[in-house]
């Protein structure tokens, strides 16, 4: 990093978590030994849409090792319905049973739960349950779902249209009238799934004597999960402890309280016996959580130089069968930030969300990822139709530094971002002008190169004011505590939960900086709701800004108390000329920081063991709490440049180079940040090129193994060249912005734009992802 005012923040330290993971000593939920625990397995629907007429589990119940078999009728007595009814205009309220009773809504939906002494026996018994179904017509895609008289996924609603929202700013109609040209473009993003390498799972232990539930699970948001469990089980929050051990990836899949987890918790309580569940991969691919199935159409009014005068967006999302989240929110953020770093004042959108007979949808790392592909893809379509260079079209539309801060047409404020700097940086690094020459040369030899650009403004941290403005119940704040123990060792906690991001190696730097100690003296404790303060957890890219910000401010507050004690010990009137640095109190004397001979260890001992030596009226101990609510939204920004070669005979896409310039403000630990950048780009490329949750027209999931749901391997991904930039956010503690999702956004757009650049000589454009060989060969058929 460049010069910073920090001594701890920004240190490139290898991770603390690594040793336990490298030696097999990590502790994931399925590694926790629980004597006498029953193992659960779920019987799932083979049909996409069916009424459950009868369940006969008599033969299964008599099988070896079986302790209990329960259905939705049983669980309905022990758990409450999930009402999803936020006061959002255009969104229909829904209610979800704890476990299906009368009807299943997708293939893989829940039918029964078997508990046995081991998982093999539970699965044997599940196979012996006889279920009689009345199969119903299913809607397996969003257009079928929104057709007149379509079978209704949720029969309490008048149609499958879950949400419809409109927005208009400026005078779009007038701009279209005066436009040089009108350019339309289509973008279809396919269904994907988060695919954490550790599937879902949980273990519930009910203490009958104390009437207390301990719930072990890998979850991104321990406290909101506890609140949800309490509400659904009719317990108080004080009766539940959620304990999150190491988590093998989340990516948005481990946020909601799923029905399986609710059932396990309810059963542990009913049977007064530990119950555990480990999802298998087939269940994870069929029934955990899906994402990203969205279609966008844009219509742009443009000037002769490619300048966008007005933009219209029409978007439809397939939300699946159930609402674990408010149905409008993912699609709405795409529409909200679509115009990104471009100068567009006249903008209108229409966003519709449909229910279908498929697994319920939710957030996946960068839920709004499609926005950057749609926006930069629209710019490329303008360039193609007007015969302009894609980079020059970006330059005429992009906000210049002088135009910032800038309020987007939707009211979103962009500040402390540098989109033109990142764009020029990647164009220079990838050799944009020379590429066009190489591309022309290659085409003469029947080789087809393509270069794609994509610039991202990444919404990172959503503050409470964003939620309030969006009409969503909830908070964007985060909470922290910092405790200096009597020996001077520092413990800290925050309401986030790590799922691989390396929090133990980044967040202590914020504490160390704020307090004035070396980071080696700080230990971070996460994931136990009895220990951590109530926070909103890890989602979006809020960890560093909301969590790191809360910890930094909390540590500063702790330093104030430490220095007040030091001033008293030094018989000074004020602590104004004191600071804590590397655990020692220093005093500014004649312009130089000078040692005082007092260390944090002395002050800690005094605070706990000699409270009468404290300043009059000060409470003993060094135990400080702090909550922090970030600005309504913070943004990072990046530009991506991707060079591909398309084999027109096979349709194979090879990535030859990948360059990212990313400005994510102050970074806590650059090692961790670089890893997040690489991982995010990899997930975006994998999704755009390979991954596909595929349903046939009857709603059968045909991608239920890892042989069918393909993710990128080491052979398909390139090395990423990253150009780091660090413009601090002026409004956040230490200038932190947040990051880790923008890479997904940029990769989806850059690789798609690159493939279309390679396809250009054939007069075809890929509008549907994934960009698999069959898709691309289909476009080229008859044109080579």
């Amino acid at each position, binding site marked *: 990093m460049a010069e910073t005012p920090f001594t701890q923040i920004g240190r490139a330290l290898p991770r603390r978590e690594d040793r336990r*993971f490298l030696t097999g000593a990590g502790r994931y939920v*399925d590694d926790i030994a629980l004597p006498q625990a029953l193992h659960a397995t779920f019987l799932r629907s083979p049909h996409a849409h069916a009424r459950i007429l009868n369940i006969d589990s008599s033969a299964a119940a008599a099988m070896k090792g079986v302790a209990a078999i329960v259905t939705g009728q049983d669980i309905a007595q022990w758990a409450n319905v999930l009402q999803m009814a936020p006061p959002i205009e255009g969104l229909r309220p829904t209610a979800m049973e704890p476990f299906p009773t009368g009807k299943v809504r997708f293939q893989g939906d829940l039918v029964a739960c078997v508990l046995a002494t081991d998982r093999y026996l539970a699965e044997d018994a599940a196979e012996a349950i006889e279920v009689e179904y009345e199969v119903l017509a299913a809607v397996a895609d969003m257009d079928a779902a929104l057709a007149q008289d379509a079978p209704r996924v949720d029969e309490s609603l008048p149609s499958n249209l879950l949400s419809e929202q409109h927005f208009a700013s400026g005078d779009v109609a007038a701009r279209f009238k005066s436009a040089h040209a009108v350019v339309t473009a289509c973008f279809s993003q396919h269904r994907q799934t988060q695919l954490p*390498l550790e599937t879902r799972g949980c273990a519930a232990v009910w203490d009958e004597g104390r009437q207390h539930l301990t719930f072990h699970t890998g979850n991104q948001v321990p406290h909101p999960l506890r609140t949800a469990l309490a509400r659904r089980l009719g317990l108080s929050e004080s009766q539940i402890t959620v304990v999150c051990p190491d988590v093998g990836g989340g*990516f948005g899949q481990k946020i909601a309280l799923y029905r399986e987890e609710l059932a396990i918790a309810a059963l542990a309580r009913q049977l007064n016996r530990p119950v555990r569940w480990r999802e298998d991969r087939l269940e994870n691919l069929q029934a955990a959580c899906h994402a990203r199935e969205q279609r966008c159409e844009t219509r742009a009014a443009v000037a002769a130089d490619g300048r966008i005068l007005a933009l219209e967006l029409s978007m439809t999302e397939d939300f699946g069968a159930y609402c674990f989240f408010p149905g409008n929110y993912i699609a709405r953020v795409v529409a909200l930030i679509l115009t990104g770093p471009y100068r567009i004042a006249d903008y209108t959108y229409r966003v519709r969300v449909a229910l279908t007979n498929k697994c319920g949808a939710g957030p996946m790392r960068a839920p709004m990822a499609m926005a950057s592909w749609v926006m930069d893809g629209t710019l490329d379509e303008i360039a193609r139709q007007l015969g302009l260079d894609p980079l020059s079209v970006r330059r005429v539309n992009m906000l210049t530094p002088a135009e910032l801060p800038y309020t987007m047409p939707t009211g979103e404020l962009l500040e402390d971002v540098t989109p033109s700097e990142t764009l020029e940086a990647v164009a220079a690094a990838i050799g944009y002008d020379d590429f066009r020459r190489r591309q022309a040369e290659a085409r003469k030899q029947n080789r087809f190169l393509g270069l794609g650009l994509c610039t991202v403004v990444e919404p990172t941290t959503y503050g409470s004011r964003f939620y309030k403005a969006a009409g969503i119940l909830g908070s964007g704040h985060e909470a922290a505590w910092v405790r200096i123990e009597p020996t001077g060792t520092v413990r800290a906690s925050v309401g986030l939960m790590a799922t691989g991001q390396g929090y133990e190696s980044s967040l202590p730097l914020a504490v160390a900086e704020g307090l004035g100690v070396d980071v080696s003296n700080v230990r971070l404790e996460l994931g136990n709701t009895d220990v951590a303060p109530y926070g909103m957890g890890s989602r979006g890219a809020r960890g560093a800004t909301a969590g790191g910000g809360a910890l930094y401010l909390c540590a500063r507050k702790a330093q104030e108390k430490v220095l007040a004690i030091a001033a008293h010990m030094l018989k000074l009137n004020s602590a104004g000329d004191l600071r804590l640095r590397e655990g020692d109190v220093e005093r500014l004397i004649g312009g130089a920081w000078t040692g005082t001979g007092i260390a944090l260890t002395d002050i800690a001992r005094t605070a706990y063991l000699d409270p009468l030596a404290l300043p009059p009226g000060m409470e003993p101990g060094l135990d400080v709490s702090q909550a922090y609510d970030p600005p309504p939204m913070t943004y990072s920004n990046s530009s991506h440049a991707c060079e591909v070669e398309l084999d027109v005979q096979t349709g194979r896409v090879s990535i030859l180079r990948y360059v990212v310039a990313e400005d994510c403000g102050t970074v806590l630990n650059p090692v961790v940040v670089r890893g997040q950048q690489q991982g995010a780009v990899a997930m975006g490329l994998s999704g755009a090129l390979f991954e596909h949750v595929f349903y046939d027209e009857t709603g059968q999931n045909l991608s239920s193994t890892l042989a069918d749901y393909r993710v990128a391997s*080491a052979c398909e*991904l390139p090395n990423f060249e990253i150009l780091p930039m660090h413009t601090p956010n002026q409004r956040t503690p230490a200038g932190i912005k947040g990051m880790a999702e923008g890479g997904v956004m940029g990769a989806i757009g850059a690789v798609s734009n690159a493939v279309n650049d390679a396809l250009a000589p054939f007069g075809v454009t890929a509008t549907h992802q994934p960009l698999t060989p069959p898709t691309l060969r289909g476009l080229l058929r008859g044109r080579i």
Partner: protein
Amino acid sequence: MAERMLITLSVNGVAHEVAVPPRRLLSDVLREDLGLTGTHVGCEHGVCGACTVLIDDRPARACLTFAVQMEGHEVTTIEAVARDGALSPLQQALHEEHGLQCGFCTPGIVMTFEAFLRDNPDPSEAEIRDVLSGNICRCTGYQNIVAAVRKAAAVMRGEAL
């Protein structure tokens, strides 16, 4: 279901007498019966590679192996890679190069390349990526894992870095 079979399972140089049903997977016996939970189960159909262990020093999927097949063979798991608390050169390089994030795939990758580096002291990047394609990592994008394997190979060859 068939009766349990009594077998001697040699894991990390220790012989264990275990009675297991013939269909019980090696991965489950290692994790649940022997408490060696460092071997992770990511897919149970042999694709993800998280459960990779060494059987007679060759990488193999513990989720595609029945424990009863292991009579007379030697199984090595992640727990035996670090010696006397010291990380192996590969483990150390993965740490230094930030070659892991959530850590769930990591034991399988370590086992795959502990064997590979014994036979291939100076692999190219393409060779490393080819072998690594048998292990799915959802977090890192693989770049730092490749760098770590190259670094470990150099260290094991005794080259100064």
